[in-house]
């Protein structure tokens, strides 16, 4: 039967050429878009993990309630001993403290009077020369002028901030903020470099200083506002991180104590989880859309084919094949065409993705006007999911088209067959 169908399909160019072409292109396009969305999603996760969320983050319960506000006055306090225990219990994680804070950057004139003031977002990280934070935040690549802080009291400004306040390397600036107890605090820093991360939210107003300097400035010697956790193999894995977070929270977090620690996976932080699931949903709806559109195209082709094969189907019915058998054979043909189209479509999709990845898509201009945490150059990520999604779309569309067109078989009247065949 299969041999009969294969011969039938491939000996008649009209039956296979355009349907396979359509399935092939739709599968290729679907694979490419799925890979593109996965690439975007991964880039978003990587950037968010690097700069604002970690793979997981430990904060106090009170801090977690207003996570986006970065209320460092709600930091975890006196947890040095516990912190060491956590590190021992979860060796698969790397732990880094950071402090995010808002401040006013004040530039003095030669008399020490305020010359300019600008609002900045402060980021305090461990900047020791052997700190993994330098690589993680890609500071060396982000450096535009000068060098990374090498001593206490040094600071990096975002390129835009430096430009706005007309600061040169070696200039002294004052950061003005509030300690964790709400007391106004001022600290002088020497500008030793400028950076550009390619993330508009940071580039518009970030300053980066050594953790210990900021800790002192904000009176946080015994406090930790955010502890970033990263899986040691650097790739974010939701299942692993969720398991660790659940275990951590069941051991160390106390719902009754608002200052007890709470571990939040990247997905649990702010609206990140819903944004990521939105991408997943968009992939699903894109598949459905493709199935419907390609299905309609193939339905139309099937109808035309039905007219062309009107006599053939009539003879088959006249010699005793049931309508169901003819319909099933049409579906089998569609399946064969679908499979052939999918194989070619997968090959073409892989080719599209590989060619695209040689240059990637430069989003730097688009990124400048948004607050999205994505990398400036986007690449596709070809994974089994993209291939399965693309293939299923092609197969379903092919079968759907034939299933709809094939219903015409059931409208044929056996009693009229010979009359029709005579004409």
């Amino acid at each position: 039967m299969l041999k009969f169908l294969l011969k039938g399909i491939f000996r008649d160019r009209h039956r296979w050429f355009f349907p396979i072409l359509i399935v092939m292109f739709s599968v290729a396009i679907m694979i490419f878009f799925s890979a593109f969305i996965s690439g975007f999603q991964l880039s978003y996760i990587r950037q968010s993990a690097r700069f604002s969320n970690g793979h997981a983050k430990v904060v106090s319960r009170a801090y977690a309630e207003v996570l986006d506000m970065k209320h460092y006055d709600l930091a975890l306090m006196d947890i040095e001993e516990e912190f060491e225990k956590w590190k021992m219990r979860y060796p698969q994680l790397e732990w880094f403290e950071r402090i995010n804070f808002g401040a006013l950057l004040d530039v003095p004139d030669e008399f020490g009077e305020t010359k300019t003031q600008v609002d900045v977002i402060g980021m305090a990280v461990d900047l020791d020369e052997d700190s993994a934070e330098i690589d993680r935040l890609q500071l060396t690549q982000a450096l535009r002028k000068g060098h990374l802080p090498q001593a206490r009291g040094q600071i990096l400004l975002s390129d835009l901030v430096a430009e706005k306040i007309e600061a040169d390397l070696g200039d002294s600036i004052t950061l003005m903020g509030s300690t964790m107890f709400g007391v106004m605090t001022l600290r002088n820093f020497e500008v030793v470099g400028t950076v550009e991360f390619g993330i508009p939210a940071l580039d518009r107003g970030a300053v980066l200083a050594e953790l210990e300097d900021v800790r002192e400035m904000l009176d946080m010697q015994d406090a930790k506002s955010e502890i970033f956790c990263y899986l040691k193999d650097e790739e974010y894995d939701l299942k692993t991180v969720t398991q660790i977070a659940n275990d951590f929270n069941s051991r160390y977090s106390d719902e009754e104590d608002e200052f007890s620690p709470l571990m939040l996976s990247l997905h649990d932080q702010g609206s990140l989880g819903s944004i990521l699931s939105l991408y997943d949903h968009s992939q699903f709806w894109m598949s459905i859309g493709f199935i419907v559109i390609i299905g309609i195209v193939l339905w139309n082709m099937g109808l035309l084919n039905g007219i062309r094969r009107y006599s053939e189907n009539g003879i088959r019915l006249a010699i005793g094949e049931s309508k169901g058998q003819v319909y099933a054979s049409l579906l089998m043909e569609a399946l064969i065409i679908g499979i052939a189209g999918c194989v070619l479509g997968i090959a073409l999709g892989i080719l599209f993705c590989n060619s695209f990845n040689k240059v990637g898509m430069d989003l730097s201009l688009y990124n400048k006007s948004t607050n999205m945490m994505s990398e400036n150059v986007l690449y596709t990520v070809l994974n089994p999911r993209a291939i399965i999604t693309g293939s299923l779309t092609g197969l379903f569309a092919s079968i759907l088209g034939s299933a709809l067109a094939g219903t015409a078989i059931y409208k044929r009247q056996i009693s009229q067959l010979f009359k029709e065949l005579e004409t």
Partner: protein
Amino acid sequence: MKKHIITLGIMLFCMVLFAQKPNAADIIREMSKNLVTENTKATTKMVVHSRRSSRTMEMLNYSSGKDKSFSEYLSPPREKGTKMLKLDNQLWIYDPTSDRTIQISGNMLKQSVMGSDLSYEDMTEDTDYAKDYNAEILEESKYDGREVWILKLSAKRNDVSYQMRKTYVDKERYIPLYEEWYAKNGKLLKTYKVSEVKKISGRWQPTKILFKDELKTGKGTEYIVVKMEIGIKIPEHIFSRASLRK
């Protein structure tokens, strides 16, 4: 003769009546007279009860009228040497760690002073009830065992920080014992509760006040007057920017 006696009687009755029921404008004028002092030197304490702890700061304050004031933080060690100078509507703060003097302006005026429930705006804007508000008596009542008038104060101008206040004025001492400070949209922003009053140099002065920022989760800020001298001579250089760095 009989006519004269009746007229005199009516006049006396009216005088008694008016003497017992001063109008709202008179009340706030008396309050202003009592609270706005010339040349004052005071040692004060501020106890900030935040969400997780309490901190005490000690200050030395000089003020001359409503427009000039100078404060120096005496403790704790981290804040020691921090100075603030207010001249008219301008405010400067000196930080000894960075050796910088910064003018507080714009949005910064809304920030909390030393983590307390008071803002810099509260500090710069020394309220003169009579000048800044129109008053209306809402009712007469008792507060904390004392006879009070409950007044509704509506700001005369748009640049007054709190557009509406509800104030409980002690009938005998002409000082507010409790106040609610509202924004223009009617939202309660802060409360002010006096728990101790002393007569200093012939004037009644609140010496223990609890300020509470109703938008914050803490337990309020206690402001305690440890020592106060009124009507003393204060050298003019105290109220100069040079004194910040001394």
